[in-house]
């Protein structure tokens, strides 16, 4: 297998981009990635474009978005296909791009993840996102993703002693990082007094799905992020202005569609298996990882994922958060971008956005105050469904 590296990254600001066409949003991030690699003028030499998107048909009443992006970027006749894997569509698109390059079928692949969710109301958006649940056994019941987030949180609290204040500490940490990230949806810090300890906390930080509150739940965002992948063992690797960041490991795994059918609903087996495969591929272990981007659509997931990937013992991760071990200046910074909580979560873009953050950190290009000191390996976990289709990625600075 050839080695695969990232030579270009692009990212729109996340937020409310509902006045824009989805193809335009994706093309904006993609042209940034091409400019970053110094390859914009030669874009027709790209062998393959892979687009990650979850639900343009529902949110934007638009299908075949890969064709739309190609045309907007004047890239015909470059081949382009769409990859859909719920909120893990972005990382799945990277995985497919990786497979294309590693197999030798392509030398240069452009991966774009994007979503415009805010053309519809939050009410309707919640309904659309819920269509990824089991049609009869979950969706028909009226359940939503926050509903499962709430039940998962309660189970975790009752078993391990996590408190609502612990979840608020995660929001404070991630907002502190997101406030410094130029791409973040919510570039504002929050204090523990405002969202947990103060007299107005119950009003400021209301329940969404008990015991999950607003500050334990990600916003609904629009945006896109893109990466240019290259075969590092090909002479074409010398065509780019930036030194490649190597994709050392990338793997995915699945779990039961119905959450209730998991032997232990608190175990995220797909996360554990995807991470183990990614570690094996990279020849690394959890202790080698310098920082991580973990899919905190609900704050509880940052904790649960950090345990499944082996950073902490089961039920102990929130104790590390209390000690500041996962803060930007901690032993193992987690969600340096602000995470989904502060940076935002345009579902199809999240995996590519996490990968862009890995590259920015490994290149040393993150903003002042949120740059990890001399990182070697970054890990990202992109979580599809309620943990039923998960992708883990490990990027390396060689």
């Amino acid at each position, binding site marked *: 297998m050839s080695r695969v590296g990232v030579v270009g990254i692009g990212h729109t600001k996340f937020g409310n981009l509902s006045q824009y066409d989805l193809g335009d949003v994706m093309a904006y991030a993609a042209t940034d990635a091409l400019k970053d690699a110094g390859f914009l003028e030669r874009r027709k030499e790209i062998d393959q474009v892979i687009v990650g998107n979850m639900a343009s048909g529902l949110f934007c009443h638009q299908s075949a978005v890969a064709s739309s992006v190609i045309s907007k970027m004047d890239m015909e006749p470059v081949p382009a296909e769409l990859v859909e894997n719920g909120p893990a569509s972005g990382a799945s698109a990277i995985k497919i791009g990786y497979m294309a390059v590693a197999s030798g079928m392509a030398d240069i692949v452009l991966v774009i993840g994007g979503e415009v969710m805010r053309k519809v*109301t*939050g*009410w*309707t958006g*919640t*309904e659309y996102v*819920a269509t990824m649940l*089991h049609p*009869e*056994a*979950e*969706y*028909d*019941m*009226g*359940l*939503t993703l*926050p*509903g499962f987030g*709430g*039940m*998962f*949180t*309660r*189970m975790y609290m*009752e078993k391990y002693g996590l408190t609502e204040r612990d979840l608020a500490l995660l929001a404070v940490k991630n907002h502190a990082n997101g406030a410094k990230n130029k791409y973040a949806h919510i570039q504002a810090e929050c204090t523990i007094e405002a969202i947990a300890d103060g007299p107005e906390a119950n009003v400021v930080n*209301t*329940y*969404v*799905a*008990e*015991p*999950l509150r607003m500050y334990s739940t990600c916003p609904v965002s629009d945006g896109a992020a893109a990466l240019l992948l290259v075969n590092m063992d090909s002479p074409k690797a010398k065509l780019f202005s930036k030194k490649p960041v190597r994709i050392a490991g990338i793997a995915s795994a699945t779990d039961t569609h*119905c*959450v*209730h*059918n998991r032997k232990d*609903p608190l175990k995220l087996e797909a996360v554990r298996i995807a991470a183990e495969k990614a570690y094996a591929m990279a020849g690394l272990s959890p202790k080698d990882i310098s920082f991580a981007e973990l899919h905190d659509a609900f704050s509880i997931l940052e904790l649960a994922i950090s345990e499944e990937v082996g950073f902490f013992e089961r039920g102990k991760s929130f104790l590390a958060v209390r000690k500041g071990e996962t803060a930007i200046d901690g032993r193992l910074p987690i969600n340096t971008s602000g995470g989904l909580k502060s940076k935002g979560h345009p579902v199809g873009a999240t995996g590519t956005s996490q990968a862009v953050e890995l590259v920015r950190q490994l290149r040393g290009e993150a903003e002042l105050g949120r740059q990890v000191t001399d990182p070697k390996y970054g890990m990202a976990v992109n979580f599809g469904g309620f943990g039923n289709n998960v992708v883990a990625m490990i990027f390396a600075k060689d």
Partner: protein
Amino acid sequence: MIDFSMYDFKEPKIKAYKCEKCGTVYYPAPMICKECHSRRDPVTDKHWETFDLEGPCELLAWTRLWNLPEGYNRKFLLFGIVQFENGLRASGRLEVEKPATGMRLVATVEESDERPGKPVHVFVFKQD
């Protein structure tokens, strides 16, 4: 004599499945038995038994959901995951004043027309 029974009121039910070959039970319906690999024909259910999933169960997890999706004109809904005595589990609505993990409940089935499309059958878990 014309048979009008198709228009009779039918009590809402949710079905669970049992593989005739090895006896493994499922909810919701699988396409292949995980134990003996028998395939279920979704049209005829040949070689698979069905039975109504209802009755006593235990609450494993619950939440009060405030941000309901389109179609639900209510302030909030309670949801839960339960385990039946035969080991099967299900997700559904909860109508209990003070929910608590581990409490004994009874699973009932009601018709709901809140989601887009045709009315559907939903679990409503109630106090025993």
